């Protein structure tokens, strides 16, 4: 909503596609990849049993053949052991089940177990669970807030200008007084219905506007900080989801590597990704935002762009390690990712808490970024103070 007389900004709002349009395919892809991991784990269980667990008595032995495990990251014709009847088994000639049948049975068991495990992740509520866990982050539309924030900036600046040197808000006859005002006072000094109250009201407008400008400035800046925070957490959400997706892919590639190259069974020891860190927010995050959004009374006269091209990460060294990037199995990756989403939700609340409760001046490093008018009070306390001062801030009555 553009400010009247101010530069329009409504065209800046709502153009960006909702972030959920990026997230939904990622959530579904992650669920599919996690499902493929679960499928591999189920297939591996069968192959491990065939190779290691099933006891082999007299007349039975283990043989090597090629099995196929389904999936985008599956493996085909990989050599594996399975239990067959040995040639010296007395039942060999009469057995209704041939060793070729046994190979087909094992292959079918692998395929069925893989699909059952995979489908339990993709056809269930897994991706919608990711969606609902992160809803507080993706559902707000910061782009729809950007134009309104600019509108509040224009309001603050317009109010501020009312107190400029050439403002008409003076007593009749004073320097800068409009001619009609001076003539009004001169021509209607003793009218019974009039009084000095109109001139007192008129003369007070610039003083009141100066005070309103400070309030509007704090309002605009705080709204900007909130918008910035929501926008950044959405950026982080996409990044975090992408990282979790990539981790699931990496785990699947490791399965392929084990089976395709070395032929060794996975031991559960995965690549150590503990060095990978993702920013999930943090208590310093909101504080960083406080300094990043300029006050309309000290910043540029035009509106600020807080959604597009904003800083992705404000306090990089305050990153929080993602659980999902450390995980290897399907359950670990998915549970870790849900935990990451829950952490993000909590961190976003904390970031908003900082904006709400902390005096902004406590979080700005540069002297020039300090807000001398309102910066020593948290927003919550400041709002209460503005309400408390209502009668003091109300324009004087005019009694005609």
């Amino acid at each position, binding site marked *: 909503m553009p400010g009247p007389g101010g530069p329009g900004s409504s065209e800046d709002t709502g153009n960006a596609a909702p972030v959920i349009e990026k997230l939904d395919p990622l959530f579904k892809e992650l669920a599919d990849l996690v499902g493929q991991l679960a499928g591999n784990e189920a297939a591996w269980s069968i192959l491990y049993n065939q190779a290691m667990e099933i006891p082999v008595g007299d007349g039975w032995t283990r043989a090597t053949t090629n099995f196929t495990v389904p999936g985008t990251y599956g493996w085909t014709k990989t050599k594996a052991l399975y239990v067959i009847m040995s040639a010296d088994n007395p039942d060999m000639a009469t057995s209704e089940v041939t060793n070729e049948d046994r190979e087909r049975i094992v292959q079918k068991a692998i395929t069925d177990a893989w699909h059952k495990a995979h489908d339990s992740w993709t056809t269930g509520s897994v991706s919608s669970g990711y969606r609902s866990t992160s809803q507080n982050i993706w559902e707000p*539309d910061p782009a729809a807030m950007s134009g309104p924030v600019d509108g509040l900036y224009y309001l603050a600046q317009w109010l501020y200008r009312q107190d400029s040197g050439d403002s008409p808000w003076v007593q009749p006859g004073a320097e800068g007084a409009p001619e009609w*005002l001076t*003539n009004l006072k*001169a*021509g209607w000094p003793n009218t019974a219905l009039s009084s000095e109250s109109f001139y007192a009201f008129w003369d007070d407008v610039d003083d009141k506007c100066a005070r309103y400008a400070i309030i509007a400035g704090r309002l605009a800046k705080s709204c900007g900080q*909130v918008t910035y925070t929501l926008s950044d957490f959405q950026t982080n959400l996409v990044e975090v989801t992408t990282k979790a997706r990539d981790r699931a892919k990496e785990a699947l590639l490791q399965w392929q590597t084990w089976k395709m190259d070395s032929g060794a069974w996975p031991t559960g020891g995965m690549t150590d990704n503990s060095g990978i860190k993702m920013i999930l927010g943090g208590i310093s995050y909101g504080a960083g935002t406080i300094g990043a959004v300029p006050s309309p009374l000290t910043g540029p006269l035009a509106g600020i762009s807080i959604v597009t091209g904003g800083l992705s990460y404000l306090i990089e060294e305050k990153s929080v390690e993602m659980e999902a990037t450390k995980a290897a199995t399907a359950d670990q990756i998915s549970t870790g990712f849900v935990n990451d989403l829950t952490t993000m939700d909590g961190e976003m609340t904390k970031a908003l808490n900082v904006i709400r409760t902390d005096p902004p001046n406590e979080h700005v490093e540069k002297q020039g970024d300090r807000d001398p008018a309102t910066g020593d009070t948290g927003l919550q306390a400041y709002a209460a103070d503005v309400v408390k001062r209502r009668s003091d801030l109300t324009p004087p009555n005019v009694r005609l």
Partner: protein
Amino acid sequence: MTTIDMKMSAIYQASHDELPRQAAEFGAYADNITGSIEPIVQQIVLAGNHPIGDDLADISVELFLHLRSTVRTCNDTATGLDGMADDFVRVDDDARAWFAKHKQYVGDPDTAPVPTSPEV
């Protein structure tokens, strides 16, 4: 400019031009508060309904009330001054003669609509 010309011009300019213009501008900015804070708070509600939305709404409502008060005062003053001038025209020959030459001031001044308060 004659005395009556100065006197009548001043009051009618105030009531029909200057005060309505100021009322309209303050009213537009008051509406701007409503148009700005409502979508902002709506999005904050979606962000887990964080209580910071209430603080922002409280501040914006206070600002709105003060700007609306200014709009009403400008409107009421315009109407009051117009009434005073019209009364004077009825009893003063010079004023009546002046008014007869300034038809643009016939009727009531255009008062600004009272701005719509935020529903937050």
